[in-house]
């Protein structure tokens, strides 16, 4: 039975990328619809997006048999529950699952915003964002420990939540004039390991396009 799966997305979005990785891990065929970015930085919201996500008007939106699901981690959890025959992303043990949800939530609460504090500012104003980002990434390194992936032997929920943000590191580092790898080598090694997975490379944002986006926003908001 063919199930219609459509993804409304933006290639540079780390949130959309999470869904792309999950779909690829599960081997799900889908139609990809890229929303338009004006001036490399302003989302030109399609009528389909506005219809499917009237509350937030944001991507990603997964449309499964005509019904929309919004919010990247909720979409990933939905994908995991519906296509539960292969590549489980969340552990079945309730405590392990709660830990995975905790760290994915931590990524959501902290990483993107810390990064933004770096690229939306310049000079000395960037220092608090840089400090906090490194602290948060070090906590994540602690959680990873000696495991190859946060999910253990395979990609899990936290890997999917965090990995796309790695594509934004280049923008953070270039704008902030610092090296994340110098401070968090284990995390960068983890990201390289993930990129060897078949489902990953084509699902990640292009770091140069991300940097272009960031530069445009900096210009538009007067930071540059």
């Amino acid at each position, binding site marked *: 039975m063919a199930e219609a799966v459509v993804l409304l997305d933006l290639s540079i979005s780390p949130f959309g990328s999470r869904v792309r990785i999950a779909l690829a891990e599960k081997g799900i065929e889908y139609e990809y619809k890229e929303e338009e970015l004006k001036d490399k930085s302003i989302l030109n919201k399609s009528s389909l997006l506005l219809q499917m996500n009237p*509350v937030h008007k944001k991507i990603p939106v997964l449309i499964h048999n005509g019904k929309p699901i919004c*919010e990247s981690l*909720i*979409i990933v959890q939905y994908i995991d529950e519906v296509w539960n025959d292969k590549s489980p992303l969340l552990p079945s043990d309730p405590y392990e*699952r709660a830990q995975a*949800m*905790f760290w994915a939530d931590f990524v959501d609460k902290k990483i993107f915003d810390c990064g933004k504090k770096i690229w939306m500012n310049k000079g000395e104003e960037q220092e608090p964002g840089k400090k906090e980002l490194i602290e948060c990434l070090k906590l994540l390194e602690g959680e990873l420990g000696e495991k190859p992936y946060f999910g253990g032997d395979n990609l899990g929920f936290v890997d999917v939540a965090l990995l796309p943000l790695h594509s934004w590191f280049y923008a953070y580092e270039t704008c902030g004039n610092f090296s994340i790898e110098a401070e968090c080598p284990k995390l960068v090694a983890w990201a390289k390991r993930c990129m060897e997975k078949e489902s990953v490379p084509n699902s990640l944002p292009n770091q140069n396009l991300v940097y272009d986006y960031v530069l445009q926003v900096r210009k538009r908001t007067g930071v540059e």
Partner: protein
Amino acid sequence: MEEVKLFGATPSPFSYRVIWALKLKGIPYEYVEEDLSNKSALLLQYNPVHKKIPVLVHGGKPIAESIIILEYIEQTWPQNPLLPKEAYERAQARFWTKFAEDKSLTFYAFFRSDGEEHEKAIKDALEVLRILEEQGLGEKKFFGGDTVGLADIAWGWMAYWLGVMEEVVGKKLFEAHAFPRLHEWMENFKKVPAIKENLPERNGMLAHFKRQREILIASSIS
């Protein structure tokens, strides 16, 4: 059954979310009241990342963040389910639950600010209420349908805490005639025995929030 402990702080609505879930499912637990101005060593040990309440400790293992605790409770004790069985409906319930998390800052801004920032917060909060009334709740009795679900628990603070906040701020945000469905939902929610029997004492809450607002306003001026 392994021991269940809840570290909370009255009158935090986040604490009460967990209390309601435990009570709705009939799970016995030990409650530990934390003094947030003097957090216990045990709390800091159980939640080193955020250092916040609530924390649920089950068989010695801690779970932090109220919504994550609710999901854990739901998975561990499936009786009186808080989430629907069908995947799409679960995603919807989780969407409206996350909406509560995302918008808590808007209502907090209403509570802690004055002047221009306060006016903006009112506008934003009214928009949230409009979305909830028309798209979130719709024709349903509860967000969870006929019975209380995850999203009801996430929004539950509004049924009781909002009135106290409005009294302290001296401004009415929620008018029953403007949001008739939400108003009815609030009344129904407060009638549910597990909720009704587990609400903080109002006068204590009023005094607490009055003190909080004074501190917040003073710190924003300086």
